[in-house]
């Protein structure tokens, strides 16, 4: 199992369910390898807990290679821990020192209620997507590739926006628990491409309305989201969404 020499103290948020009041509980782990991922260290801790007959700590994880966006964890005051541009599964124990105390909390936002321990309900994001983060197409044969010419710069910017994995680190780190970076990435990836044009202004209005309805806070442009995003989604997307939203509301005559 563990073959390293790191001994750590963990302060981990334990919460039975959405309604109950949680608290930080201290745990010790020993002989942790610096080559382990942060989630593997949690696996070691959970095995200890299970062996003792305790409840293991519930945390979200899936692909463990930084592409699914499932793993969360607010580690020592930052989403996905102390490194930039990675998810928690890509964080390794060599980023910490032997003897460290590490505090691990769930994403905290009104719109992300805790389900249990470190797992939060991020379905608010799904509802924002359902409100307009798609294109309506008729089914039929696939078009020939490159049928629709797209400028390279637009294709690149759309691709960069589409890199968003919906992990929620932007909401978690924002002092206002605002979801603007996420929503703007989902708006931008379609607003930049010809396929997204017919529904462009309806989409932005519906998605922003849903974002507001979910109880996310208001963006104050601190830039924390961009700095903590594991996929490097840029604040330019927020400006683009604001532009589209304002032209939809104040220029377009179409009601969403």
């Amino acid at each position, binding site marked *: 199992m563990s073959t390293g020499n790191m001994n750590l103290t963990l*302060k981990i*948020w334990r919460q039975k369910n959405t309604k109950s009041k949680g608290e*930080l509980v201290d745990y010790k782990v020993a002989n942790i390898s610096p080559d382990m991922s942060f989630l593997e260290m949690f696996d070691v801790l959970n095995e200890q807990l299970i062996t003792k007959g305790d409840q293991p700590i519930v945390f979200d994880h899936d692909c463990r290679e930084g592409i699914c966006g499932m793993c969360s964890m*607010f580690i*020592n*005051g*930052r989403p996905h821990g*102390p490194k930039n541009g990675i998810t928690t599964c890509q964080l390794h124990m060599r980023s910490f020192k032997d003897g460290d105390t590490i*505090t691990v*909390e769930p994403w*905290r*936002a*009104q*719109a992300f209620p805790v389900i249990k321990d470190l797992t939060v309900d991020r379905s608010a994001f799904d509802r924002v997507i359902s409100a307009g983060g798609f294109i309506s197409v008729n089914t039929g044969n696939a078009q020939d590739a490159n049928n629709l010419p797209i400028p390279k710069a637009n294709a690149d910017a759309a691709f960069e926006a589409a890199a968003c994995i919906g992990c929620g680190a932007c909401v978690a*780190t924002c*002092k*206002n*628990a*605002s979801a*603007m970076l996420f929503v703007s990435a989902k708006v931008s990836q379609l607003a930049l491409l010809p396929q997204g044009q017919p529904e462009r202004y309806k989409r932005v209005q519906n998605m*922003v*309305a849903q*974002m*507001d309805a979910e*109880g*996310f*806070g*208001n*963006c*104050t*442009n*601190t*830039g*924390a989201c961009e*700095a*903590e995003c594991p996929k490097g989604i840029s*604040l*330019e997307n*927020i*400006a*683009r*969404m*604001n*532009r*589209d*939203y*304002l032209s939809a*509301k*104040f220029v377009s005559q179409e*009601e969403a």
Partner: protein
Amino acid sequence: MSSLSKAFSSSIGKKVIMGITGLFLISFLLVHCFLNAFVFFNDNGLMFNIGAHFMATNWFIRAMEFVLMGGLLLHIVQGARLTFQNNAARPVKYAVANGQANSKWYSRSMGLLGTLLLIFLIVHLGNFWVVSRFTGIPTHDANGHEDLYAVMKKTFENVWLVALYALSMISLGYHLLHGFSSAFQTMGWNHKKYTPLIKCIGLWFSILIPLLFAIMPIAMYFNCIK
């Protein structure tokens, strides 16, 4: 609710109100600072009083005073609402939050800086605006203009007021340092060619304007301006 009022009550609409009123207040600061800088003519306030006389009698300026009061109130009320709403968006706070790792402290403290500025503003309006509009400026200068300069000299004999004014300008500087470029971002004016320029102008604006404002009471207290 009509479609336009719905737009203004959305999260982006609320920010737009902050941005527009903020940019308007920035333009006011520029005029205010330019006219106040007339004290540096060192002519016992003659030029300054000419400026003050113009501002007090020109119909356009007087009309804009109402717009300014409206804009200021909107900025304050909306700012307070946003601060409370944003606070409520995270009912359970983090035990450990490392904000300095990803953002500037002043960008996270606009509510606090704004509150400090509001306290300053109440004192400031009491010192000058109430005097020139309501209670009356007691003396006249050599040109026969109301001597607002004398009121200023008298006010800045008080070391505590001088300190309050100078310290408040630090709050103003940091408030502007975030607010100036943030207003452009909110309006969607983010552009690879212009954003670096906006940030640069914002930086210099937030240093120079508060610095000039702060020098005035300090220089008067130490009798460097005659």
